[in-house]
């Protein structure tokens, strides 16, 4: 076991845990953002640099600070390590810079992007970025490629997190036909020879994509996500666990996704049949409303919890109070 101090909070974690996962054990607003790291995918992380933190003391044995900021998602903890994230202005400054870098070639087409409302890049930019840009050059574009009838690829929105590559390697085993082609800012996700990404688990690349680069073609332009209501459901599926979230608008199932945890990571991978074909309520056993973080825009239409101002409304139900404590309301403009 290793004991580390993260933003002044002590936590004990097993040896070999990464700094990011140690921070997640503490939870709350001190957890560094992660745009490319994905716990279920081996080898992911280290690329987006959103999770950079400062190590003020390397370990109990060698308490020297690390010379550069380190990517918390791939750096293992050492006993006695002291890490600074939100308490270090340099880290926050660098993070602002990372947002800027990720956005300079991003099309900012959120108004027509199906990912809007559940986009990691939107959240990241809202929380850590600045509202203006210093970039005045033409944004990078790519030739469109068609990767089949189920998945839509928008390369311009991609931040090259490599998650979909690892997913294809590890989840849809040995059946990867897409990858990163080219180099530098011309690098793109592609299939080299036009090909259809199609195997039983290929749809999972949609769920792992942090931005709107890979979206569900069967859901394309059907609704903004915040007008749909997520419901946990399951079915007896021979290929996967069958545990999904159905996204309803009225009585129609518009979309099916895997269930995700609070960090947006898929809990159980689902197969393409569950995702793309079973769009009737009668296909599923409904469990109840899915939990949506109350700071999410999807909660904005009073779906799960009323948007309440803690200081004005007295006698909140206990469960709501607990929830508020766990996820304090976002302060706008902070």
């Amino acid at each position, binding site marked *: 076991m290793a004991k580390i101090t993260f933003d002044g909070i002590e936590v004990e974690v097993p040896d070999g845990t990464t700094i990011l996962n140690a921070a997640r054990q503490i939870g709350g607003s001190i957890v560094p953002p992660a745009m490319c790291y994905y716990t279920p995918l081996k080898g992911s*992380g*280290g*690329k*987006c*640099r*959103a999770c*950079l933190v400062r190590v003020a003391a390397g370990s109990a044995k060698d308490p020297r600070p690390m010379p*550069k*900021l380190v*990517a918390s998602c*791939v*750096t*293992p903890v050492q006993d006695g390590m002291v890490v600074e994230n939100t308490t270090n202005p340099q880290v926050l400054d*660098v993070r602002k*810079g*990372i947002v*800027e*870098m*990720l956005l*300079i*070639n991003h099309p900012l087409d959120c108004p027509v992007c199906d990912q809007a409302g559940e986009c990691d890049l939107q959240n990241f930019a809202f929380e850590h970025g600045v509202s203006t840009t*210093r*970039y005045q*050059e033409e944004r*990078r574009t790519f030739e469109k490629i068609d990767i089949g009838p189920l998945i839509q690829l928008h390369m311009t929105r991609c*931040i*090259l997190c*490599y998650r979909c590559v690892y997913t294809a390697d590890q989840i849809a085993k040995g059946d990867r036909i897409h*990858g*990163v082609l*080219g*180099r*530098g*800012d*011309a*690098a793109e996700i592609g299939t080299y020879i036009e090909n259809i990404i199609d195997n039983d688990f290929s749809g999972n690349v949609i769920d792992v994509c942090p931005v709107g680069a890979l979206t569900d073609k069967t859901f394309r332009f059907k609704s903004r996500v915040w007008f749909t209501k997520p419901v946990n459901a399951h079915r007896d599926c021979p290929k996967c666990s069958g545990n999904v979230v159905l996204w309803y608008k009225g009585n129609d199932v518009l979309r099916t996704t895997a269930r995700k945890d609070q960090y947006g990571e898929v809990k159980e991978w689902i197969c393409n049949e569950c995702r793309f074909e079973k769009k009737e309520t009668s296909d599923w056993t409904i469990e109840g409303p899915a939990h949506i973080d109350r700071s999410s825009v999807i909660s904005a239409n009073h779906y799960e919890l009323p948007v309440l101002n803690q200081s004005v409304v007295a006698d909140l139900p206990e469960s709501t109070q607990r929830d508020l404590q766990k996820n304090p309301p976002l302060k706008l403009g902070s």
Partner: protein
Amino acid sequence: MGRKLLTEHINVEGIDTLEVYRKHGGYRSVEKAIKTMTPDEVVEEVKKSGLRGRGGAGFPTGMKWSFLAKPDGVPRYLVCNADESEPGTFKDRQLMSKLPHLLIEGMITSSYALGANTSYIYIRGELLYVLRILEKAIAEAYAAGFLGKNILGSGYDLDLHVHPGGGAYICGEETALLESLEGKRGNPRNKPPFPAVQGLYARPTVVNNVESIAAVPVIVNEGGDEYAKIGVGRSTGTKLISACGHLNKPGIYEIELGLPVEEFIYSDEYCGGIWKGRDLKAVVAGGSSVPILPKELILKTAAGENRLMTYESLSDGGFVTGTMLGSGGFIAMDETTCIVRNTWNFSRFYHHESCGQCSPCREGTGWMEKVLHRLEHGHGHMEDIDLLVSVAKQIEGNTICPLGEAAAWPVAAAVRHFRHEFEWHVTHAKEAAQPGAVYRAGAVLA
């Protein structure tokens, strides 16, 4: 004239054949090391010699070797980084094409010291003709019993392979090189784990520059202490400097570390001064990624001392008034050189060569190039100059590998030392955009 340890016989007819190379004392270090020394003794000699990595970072080679993890029953590897592609650096190519056996001898001795039974030379893809020279030399070494099973009857086995890269600059970064050698896309790895623990095929690996490995035979033959006598302070031995740019005699020079920069540029023994009788304007002392310095700071340090060709003296003053010895790619620029255009050119290179894996470098190198392009072509604004510094700062230190720094340093240094030229490009946009236009001292900026 300083001593020449590596290149003494470089111009001997037929030195690329084993026979002639042997006549001039070749492969003595292999015999000495394998027959009379233990591997640890060889490592100890290299440590004593104070040899520092010649690829750019200047990390002590002996110390790097002693970091190599040596678990039982697990193979370890020595990889020679011959992916020399830094603009301004062309020393390894010459060394390998003229003296292939020197590198092979160094590889055998070093592999023996590290206990590696398979070693690789990862050579830049463009140097296909050098690859053929090396392969021919390796075949000769196999035939003479210096490679293969049971070398010189000692029971030590070594196989040596040459592997060409695809011509990507990034594959000169050691972990990207290992990825590429494994047959994957040449993306640098996250560290830790370091190659000394998990390198090639997840085995302990040492990656050394060609020149570092070529220095090992000399160290073994003459002894580490003897080698350490050459040079100044912690910069020991000799270094190949590939001098290019506006010099009377550009070329590759083997110098004893500690040579004054002024002597190197102006003495007839070396570069012979600036061509066409012009004045020196700036020098990039160690390959395109190190900070550029103006004439007054490259000849003398900020404290007024003579600047020497050593790791310490060149980096005296940090990045505010100093630079780095780097890989020894010495680029001299005369007074007709436009620094903005030159910086743009460097920047274009790093933009083209970024692997695109991590966001600051992928997006930032392109951004800097575009801003510099704008400035050079007369569309810049005063804010752009500070923007460049700011973007460079956002890249530096925040990337997976040192390519981010390599891209950021030249830009930041050019603005630091030649800000007036950037300003002139804004105030005299039309004039500056003309081909060959260059800021002249005393030009009015307003």
